[in-house]
């Protein structure tokens, strides 16, 4: 008696799954399989340009929230959030003395979700200054600046300065009383430096008073110059964390 085995018909779910995830096009985008095995999980991280900021494995203490409070990651997350909301605000904002303030009012009243975008941008900016300061304190109190991470601490100090400058240049853009006088007070401090103060202040605000040239200079620095510079330093910062073997841990 010979029994022939009938090929089992596969459930519909499996066939749909195969059709979606096991075809030529999908494979051309995601080269590793679904990350449900350790091998594929490591490949998912290592073969993805965004995820490969991470190593594939990490020490278990570093996943504990209280070890870092996510502060460095939070700073980066806020930078990304500020970039997105900032680009949306740029669609409606013209940095000229005639239009800036009216554009701000339009963003708040006429633009759909404009107020929300502006609020998000403002609160995330304050949040980023706080997050960067607290990240610095976390790194100090966990002794994470020690060799071989000395220079990455220096890069971090540069990023702190860039964060403050980004926030400061953004402060002028609404062109209301708060902006004008905050920037006047702030740039007067620069002007008080011995010998080079006045020339530096002149270059920074493009004149003797905070006016039209200061607005366009601060705008350009705020939306292009400083973010690019910050991105370069962040690249170095993250790269060096990886090269130095991830977060510091006890010997």
């Amino acid at each position, binding site marked *: 008696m010979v029994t022939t085995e009938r090929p089992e018909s596969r459930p519909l779910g499996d066939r749909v799954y195969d059709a979606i995830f096991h075809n030529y096009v999908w494979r051309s985008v995601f080269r590793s399989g679904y*990350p449900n095995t350790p091998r594929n*999980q*490591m490949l*998912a*991280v290592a073969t993805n340009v965004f*995820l490969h900021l991470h*190593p*594939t*494995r*990490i*020490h*278990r203490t570093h*996943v504990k929230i209280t*070890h870092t409070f*996510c502060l460095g*990651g*939070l700073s980066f*997350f806020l930078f990304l959030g500020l970039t997105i909301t900032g680009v949306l605000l740029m669609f409606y904002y013209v940095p000229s003395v005639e239009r800036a*303030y009216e554009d*701000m009012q339009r963003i708040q009243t006429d633009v759909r979700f404009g107020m*929300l975008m502006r*609020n*998000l*941008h403002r*609160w995330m900016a304050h*949040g980023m*200054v706080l997050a960067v300061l607290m990240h610095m304190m976390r790194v*100090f109190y*966990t*002794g994470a*600046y*020690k*060799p071989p991470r*000395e220079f990455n*601490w220096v890069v971090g*100090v540069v990023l702190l300065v860039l964060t*403050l400058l980004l*926030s*400061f240049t953004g*402060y002028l853009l609404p*062109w*209301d*009383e*708060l902006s004008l*006088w*905050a920037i006047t*007070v*702030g740039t*007067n*401090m620069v002007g*008080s*430096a*011995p*010998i080079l103060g006045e*020339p530096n202040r002149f270059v920074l605000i493009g004149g003797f008073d*905070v*006016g039209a040239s200061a607005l366009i200079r601060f705008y350009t620095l705020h939306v292009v110059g400083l973010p690019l510079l910050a991105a370069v330093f962040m690249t170095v910062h993250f790269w060096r964390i990886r090269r130095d073997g991830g977060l510091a*841990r*006890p*010997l």
Partner: protein
Amino acid sequence: MVISTQAAAQSPAVRARSRRSREEELLVWPDLVFVEFISAVLFTLSFTLLSVLIDAPLQDRANPAHTPDPSKAPWYFLNLQELLLHMHPALAGVIVPTVALAALAAIPYFDRSLEHQGEWLATPRAWTMTAIGAVVGTVGTILLILWDGQKHVVLWARLTGHDVAEWPAKLNWLRNARSIQNNIAWPESWRHIPLGSKVLRTDLLGLPKVDLDVNLPAVLVEQVIPVSFMVGLPLLLSLVLWRLGIAKTRRDHMIVQFSGFIAVFLTLTISGTFFRGSGMELFWFWDVKPAVS
């Protein structure tokens, strides 16, 4: 978990290796990526909620002819603006922040010990050092601000039932820093010491000539006294802690100095933000009124 044969190993090298063993490690996908995703969602939600509830301020259109009183910088520069009230603007606005940032960046080059990294306040005495730095920094800054605001005169008047104006004329130079310049009979010649344009050769850099006419009492009050406080007091603190045997290692001194710096930074920021009202005078924060233009 560390397996038992490794835990039993005696040599430090083996112990170090066992800690780094694969057993102690997790896969980034899913364990870290998941945490990152959840925190990104949480922070997006909470910032959205905050933005729905509280609107960013937009005041009247900028008007260069109107100066609001007080006019303040953004909050993270109010520490510098607070300093500005007590010393020469060049010192407060440029030199102090530059030196502070340079000193901050230099921390890892002074403290190079490898022990106890990657753990919160793990060196022995770390908590003590943090507490000492924080307390001395906060109290010292508050006392200095109160002294320069002549609040000890007010206190004396309250305690003795006198009027503030009755402060003994002999002690007028103790009113605040500026009174050292104004209320001491300095020789008149000290107020104008002509050094000419030969000392600072700014013309070599293509800049306008600087005719130096030194006002010695002013230099004393605006530069020498603040610098000696800002450099001397932290050094004195470290010296005392070292002589008393409380601070023993470089890391101890670093923690004291860093904690002190953070405390001073926060105290100055809080003072500049909440306790400075009209004319940047000191007020209780419930008496500080919004700026009038």
